[in-house]
């Protein structure tokens, strides 16, 4: 049972129930759609970037608790930061969810997002946690669509 509570931590449940930065963004400069065809999770990510700084970011869509909380926490984490910082965070997140379960996580890089380290116990759910991040990468690179399956 401990690995379940490890996955569904209170922070994740809270962001699932009350997602932050959820809704449309009128003055978006960057946008991408993320889709996990396997489970039907869909999200739209919209960013307002000025120079190299992410002024605002919002997401919309439907998905499981993990994908929704991940998008919510991600938007919180990158808002107000530079594109380069967001990309560094992407790498740190990717490293965390692909680190073998037996290895420790470097929390100095990842901060609050460490709540998703429990997803490593659930291989089928890693894609859920990663969807928002892949969509972010697509939006920053100018691609329109990101897919995880």
């Amino acid at each position: 049972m401990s690995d379940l509570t490890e996955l569904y931590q209170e922070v994740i449940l809270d962001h699932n129930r009350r997602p932050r930065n959820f809704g449309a963004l009128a003055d978006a400069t960057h946008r991408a759609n993320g889709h996990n065809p396997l489970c039907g999770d869909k999200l739209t990510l919209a960013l307002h970037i000025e120079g190299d700084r992410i002024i605002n970011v919002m997401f919309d869509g439907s998905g499981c608790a993990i994908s929704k909380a991940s998008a919510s926490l991600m938007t919180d984490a990158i808002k107000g930061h530079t594109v380069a910082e967001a990309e560094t965070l992407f790498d740190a997140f990717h490293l965390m969810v692909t680190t073998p379960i037996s290895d420790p996580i470097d929390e100095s890089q990842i901060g609050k997002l460490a709540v998703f380290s429990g997803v490593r116990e659930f291989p089928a759910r890693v894609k859920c946690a990663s969807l928002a991040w892949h969509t972010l990468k697509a939006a920053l690179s100018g691609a329109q669509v990101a897919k995880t399956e």
Partner: protein
Amino acid sequence: MAAPGALATFDVAAIRSQFPALDQLVHGKPLVYLDNAATTQKPQVVIDAIRRYYEHDNANIHRGVHALSERASKMYEDAREDVRAFINARSTTEVVFTRNTTEGINIVACAWGDENVAAGDEILITAMEHHSNIVPWQQLCKRSGAILKVAPIDDRGALIVEAFEQLLGPRTKMVAMTQLSNALGTVVPVAELTTKAHAVGATVLVDGSQAAYHFATDVQALNCDFFVFTGHKVYGPTGIGVLYGKEAILEATPPFMGGGDMIGSVTFEESTWNVLPYKFEAGTPHISGPIGLAAAIRFVRGIGFDSIHAHESALLAYATERISAMPGVTIIGTAPVKASVISFVMDGIHPHDIGTIVDREGVAVRTGHHCAQPVMDRFGIPATARASLAMYNTTADIDTLVRALARVQEVMG
């Protein structure tokens, strides 16, 4: 709530003991396997038949003169006779081995479709088809200029028969429909609809993928022109399916794939085709597949569909009652005639989270769109969780599922 009484003569414990995979712990809990609409577990006799074939009889078929090849050929063709009897086809010439249901539908859509469907013709399907009974017809429409029509379903997930009838017309060339919806559990009155389709001159394909392990199939009584099903859902191995076609129609249909075994003679100028059903079985087939499938068919017939159906119906009624009594749980698919499948959603909880949490209780259910995205769109939901029953499930399995769903609500707050 009393357990259903109709199960008295059906020894489910004895049946369960035939399925080795059911006897295991998952995350430390006894496995409760409720993903049967995806694939069923295999009885020991099926595993033994495949193993025995590879240990004693393995050889290529239809060409060797040596003892092993003769044995393998005989086992392969005996299996065809078992399948013929299973679906009550007139002749083994009407039984084509495929990989699965999807391949069967694609053979018909390509080989029969390209020959018989032209621009402006219509193909009629239902709104509850699996992607495998949508996409091949869309592709045929694209190739031929034909039009795909979709008969709607009501809010319970039942086919609206009047609307189906209105969509039938002189341009309807093919009616392709499931006998049992994998996403909703709806039983479709395919015999009645086949009669209506034939009245306008349409050819009929019935997708029996879900139905074939819940009730007896009689292709002559259905009177459909094609019937497709897959082995792995009738307790047989994966990788083996069956395409039934009426002999006259198969005779008139060109082959789908060219190669060895499907030919009469070959020169560089021209080839002629082998007789039915070999015309549709190019290349070395999945020889152990039909052998395993035949063992599964004999196993199922030994128990009998009357008992299986009675057991599963009582269990479905019990599961429906227990699950619909849970607060915050809604069953999707409440057609008056259903079998096996209970698709459901939970308030504020995504099906994926349901699937993960019940798995930790040892309960295997399917979550997602079940390869039926148009069904999900029809009900305005992204996905469902789905429990699907087989002959070896028990009321105790349902009780465990209900407890696990309560646990989901607890975890997700």
